[in-house]
């Protein structure tokens, strides 16, 4: 506690620091290089800590509005009643203990020329390198009828926290025999297998607690991550309960009416007892403000350093980045953060970062004792992060149940390991 309090420096002091441009390499000036990281999720918190580990002389400030981080991976198990939200929550005490200054604030502006970040209270933080790890924002209004007020009736639960609990409470309050509808968005979005893991664990809840109910997944796509594995498991575990409707069969939701919990498609209307709308998304707001998001709403980056292709000295990692073949996952965010931190340490020391290699592994639970996975290895190729040919793939389709059970155990182990590394 003591060390974390010490690290919570008064922002007023930082605000008086000079905003003058510092010629690079920063260490040649004798002053500590300053890196500001915006966003304390898997990407940002990992990067802040990896920077200190790569070179303890780097002064790192982590800008994060929330005192507690609520993790999305495994939040579908909270919705399905298998886990409590508190198991998803982490604080920044150990992060601060690494000598990282935690600025409990929202970043509201970035001046890429003056190299400074402005916080909501007006304080300015100067940087030599800025890392933006803002995660996602909901594209309110992109789906007609779905705004912030509608989300209180038809939760998205795509940022873990109160929305997660709201969806769980709605499922718990529903009478047996009700219709639950999930709307899944077009690519790209956070956690590609997430909607289908969620469908699985809601189906598991309904099967065990409300077996006369029905779950409909309305999808804006005709294909999705780990599709064959999910569909085989659904046939085995949830026959007649879970129905997936792809784009080509009228799955694309074109508007919603929150008051009646109605989802409208080109082919018809579905009135749900519980509706989970996973809406279109974009990079977190500060990315747009800083000028690092392109017209897609996401952020193009250099695949070696994760430096923005639109603004100098600003790096973007995690869900907000356009990371080529890498999915928007917590594992990928953590791997990108460590690569980016090593590259920044090199750049600040006047060196050239080497070409990196990154890994992703994502587990999904289809039932509490039934796990499946996708893994990939990535390297820069043609200005993008691309799959290493011949590597990666999903769990075997013909694996025995013992393998599914083992992957469910590994999924939980992964969560403990990664949250231990990032927040522990």
């Amino acid at each position, binding site marked *: 506690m003591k060390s974390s309090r010490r690290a919570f420096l008064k922002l007023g002091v930082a605000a008086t620091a000079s905003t003058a441009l510092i010629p690079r*390499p920063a*260490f*040649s*000036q*004798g002053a500590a290089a300053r890196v500001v990281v915006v966003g304390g999720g898997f990407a940002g918190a990992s990067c802040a800590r*990896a920077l200190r*580990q*790569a*070179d303890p002389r780097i002064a790192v400030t982590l800008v994060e509005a929330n005192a507690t981080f609520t993790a999305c991976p495994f939040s579908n198990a909270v919705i399905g009643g298998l886990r409590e939200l508190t198991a998803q929550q982490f604080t920044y005490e150990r992060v601060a203990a690494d000598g990282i200054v935690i600025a409990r604030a929202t970043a509201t502006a970035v001046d890429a020329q003056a190299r400074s970040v402005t916080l909501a209270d007006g304080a300015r933080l100067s940087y030599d390198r800025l890392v933006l790890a803002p995660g996602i924002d909901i594209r309110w209004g992109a789906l007609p009828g779905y705004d912030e007020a509608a989300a209180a009736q038809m939760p998205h639960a795509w940022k873990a926290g109160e929305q997660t609990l709201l969806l769980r409470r709605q499922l718990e309050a529903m009478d047996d025999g009700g219709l639950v509808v999930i709307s899944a968005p077009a690519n790209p979005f956070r956690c590609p297998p997430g909607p289908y893991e969620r469908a699985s664990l809601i189906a598991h809840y309904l099967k065990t607690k409300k077996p006369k109910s029905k779950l409909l997944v309305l999808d804006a796509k005709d294909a999705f991550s780990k599709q064959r594995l999910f569909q085989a498991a659904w046939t085995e575990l949830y026959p007649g309960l879970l129905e997936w409707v792809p784009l080509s069969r009228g799955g694309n939701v074109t508007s919603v009416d929150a008051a009646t919990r109605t989802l409208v498609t080109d082919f018809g209307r579905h009135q749900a007892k519980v509706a989970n709308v996973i809406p279109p998304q974009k990079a977190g707001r500060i990315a747009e403000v800083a000028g690092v998001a392109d017209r897609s709403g996401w952020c193009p980056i250099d695949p070696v350093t994760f430096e923005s292709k639109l603004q100098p000295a600003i790096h973007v990692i995690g869900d907000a980045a356009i990371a080529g073949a890498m999915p928007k996952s917590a*594992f990928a965010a*953590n*791997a990108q953060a*460590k*690569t980016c931190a*090593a590259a920044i*340490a*090199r750049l*600040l*020391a*006047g*060196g050239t970062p*080497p*070409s*990196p*290699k*990154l*890994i992703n*592994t994502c587990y999904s639970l289809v039932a509490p004792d039934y796990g499946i*996975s996708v*893994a*990939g*290895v*990535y*390297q820069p190729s043609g200005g993008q992060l691309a799959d*290493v040919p*011949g*590597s*990666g*793939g999903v*769990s075997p389709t013909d694996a025995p149940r013992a*393998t599914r059970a*083992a*992957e469910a*155990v*590994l999924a939980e*182990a*992964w969560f*403990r*390991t*990664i949250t*231990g*590394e990032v927040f*522990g």
Partner: protein
Amino acid sequence: MVKVTAAAIGAISIAAAVVASAEPPAGAAACSGCHPASTRVTSPVTRLAGRDQAAIVKAMQDFRSGTRAGTVMDRIAKGFTDEEIQAIAAWYATQK
């Protein structure tokens, strides 16, 4: 002025050397997503820090060739060359 410049160059080269020795080789940093770096984490997945270099190399080669069954490591090992596996194994062998 000359002295200042020399001192500055010295600082740069020391910084580069420190970074180079501590920096994991390509691919190595991602392993700790599943293989715990911390001894405080309970996991059935092996810790890699301080493990014998030859043992890590053999495991990776066996996963890659299919001699050893894995859940995800068979798919991940196929993304690495012999040289990369050697460098990663050598680096982990020196970690605590």
